């Protein structure tokens, strides 16, 4: 326990540095973008004067470093700023979307992780066998299909032809569990297919590596069945790398799901960030970047913690 607390403590410190880097990087590349919020706002009705006025209003006339400093200062005082595109506070804007994104991510994770692990473990247990090869081909073909194609096919089949599921993921107010199921079925399946393959393959690798360890042979020689040797002996020691792989894959679920959000018209944070880019809405863009980074760091942290919990040596802080 002590170890974990210490880890968390030092991680938070490190994470702050990472976040700083991210914000700087994002701010830098976003400044490469042609045009600015003022122009985007006024579009073609942008007379030079009008643009100038708006720039002043947005404080876009300050040199970039100053703007960055201001933004950072604001953030430190807990103020993420106001969206330039629509004068709402950024945190409110993100808040609405984040809950939705987390919901989608959550459902996907719940489905994808066990699925992937089962695939990985099974193919590890029978590594080299037909099953293994079959799973291998299966997982490969799963990654090999562009997700937008996958999603469209699903829509065509289940929404357009069979009319079982809605083609858009809207959650009606006062939605029942069934509504949720209908709304999420297709996006979740799409994402699962995209993610599972990677996790399954890494799970397999991790377990196979453990299977070559003497203690697994020992378990077999104690009369343990193969499945017992794998599940009770090998798996606990493979947890480290597995959770790491899972963490990396899941980090995709926040920022990576633009396409799914577009196709199913699901209002998540990814498309919000795209919006922020097109509107040159720096405060929003920055906030999103921060968000994704935090999400990533948290996932990695969780991974490391569970690795520690799984490994008594690390647990004791040895």
């Amino acid at each position, binding site marked *: 326990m002590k170890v974990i607390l210490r880890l968390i403590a030092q991680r938070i410190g490190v994470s702050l540095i*990472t976040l700083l880097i991210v914000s700087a990087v994002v701010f830098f590349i976003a400044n*490469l973008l042609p045009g600015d919020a003022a122009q985007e706002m006024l579009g073609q009705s942008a007379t030079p004067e009008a643009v100038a006025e708006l720039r002043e209003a947005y404080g876009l006339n300050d040199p970039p470093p100053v703007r960055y400093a201001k933004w950072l200062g604001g953030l430190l005082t807990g103020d993420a700023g106001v969206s330039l595109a629509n004068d709402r506070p950024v945190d409110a804007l993100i808040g609405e979307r984040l809950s939705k994104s987390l919901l989608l991510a959550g459902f996907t994770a719940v489905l994808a992780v066990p699925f992937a692990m089962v695939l990985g473990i099974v193919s590890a247990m029978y590594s080299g066998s037909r099953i293994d090869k079959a799973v291998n081909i299966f997982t490969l073909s799963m990654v*090999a*299909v562009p997700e937008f194609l996958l999603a469209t096919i699903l829509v*065509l089949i289940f929404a357009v032809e069979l009319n079982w599921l809605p083609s858009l993921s809207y959650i009606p107010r006062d939605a029942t569990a069934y509504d949720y199921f209908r709304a999420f079925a297709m996006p979740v399946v799409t994402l699962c297919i995209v993610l599972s393959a990677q996790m399954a393959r890494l799970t397999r690798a991790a377990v196979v590596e453990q299977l070559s360890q003497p203690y697994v042979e020992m378990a077999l020689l104690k009369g343990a069945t193969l499945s017992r040797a794998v599940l009770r002996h090998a798996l606990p020691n493979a947890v480290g790398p597995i959770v790491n792989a899972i963490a990396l894959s899941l980090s995709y679920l926040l920022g990576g799901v*633009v396409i799914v959000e577009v196709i199913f018209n699901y209002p998540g944070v990814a498309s919000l960030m795209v919006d922020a880019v097109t509107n040159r809405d720096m405060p929003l863009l920055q906030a999103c970047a921060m968000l994704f980074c935090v999400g990533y760091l948290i996932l990695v942290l969780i991974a490391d913690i569970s690795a520690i919990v799984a490994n008594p040596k690390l647990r004791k802080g040895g």
Partner: protein
Amino acid sequence: MRSQLSALPVSGKIGLSLVVFWVVLAIIGPFITPYSASELVAYDVFESFSGKYWLGTDYLGRDVLSRLLDGARFTIFIPLAAAGLACATGTFIALFAAVSHRRTDETISRFMDALISIPSKIFALVMIAAFGSSVPILLTITAISYMPGSFRLARSLAVNVANMDFVTVARTRGESRAYLAVKEILPNIVHPMLADFGLRFVFVVLLLSSLSFLGLGVQPPQADLGSLVRENISGLAEGAPAVIIPAIAIATITIAVNLLIDSLRGGATYSAGSK
């Protein structure tokens, strides 16, 4: 070489032959197109297979086969180059980190974390909006977005190897850091990095097709296979070959590369990762 070939398992041989097939096609493709890839040859769009247009026609009535032959090279060579670049840079930075002092190592790792956490699609969106979409830019973007991943792997491997006696021996000899990294460590992490390269390749292929979905792909009238799928997606309902064939092409390429890499990895007797 020959012996290595025969040593490959069946899956490996299949993979190899497919890879070779595609690479060859990518090279000679543009020269053997039955029609000009950008010419509107047919009035009917989304035609199915026919003697005239073997793979049918696309949404503008262009010959799909010609488009395919012409587009393959983008889906082969950009990812090859990008994945190669990503793995190479990732590996070398990782080696550098592994043999440097803890502080340097830390800083690099933090920076990489930062890079990883920026969604690649959005990164691409920004970069292309800023610099326009050209093959070099696409290459750079994809390479940058997948480099940190390779770095993570390479570093963990390198750190393992760095603690092994033969590296210590070299250190007691007073060898330079560069020598330790390149001559002693690198050869022992090459195999797992190769496997990694295969995965990166797939990722880049898919990222490219995702980009084409967002309208950020290669410049028309050229189109990588992903763009072909995307621009003909409306033909999916009537099951037009224009959308199905490129999709299958992408699938075979990615699967082939991985089958090959997997079988190579299987052949690799020594992996520092497992020590």
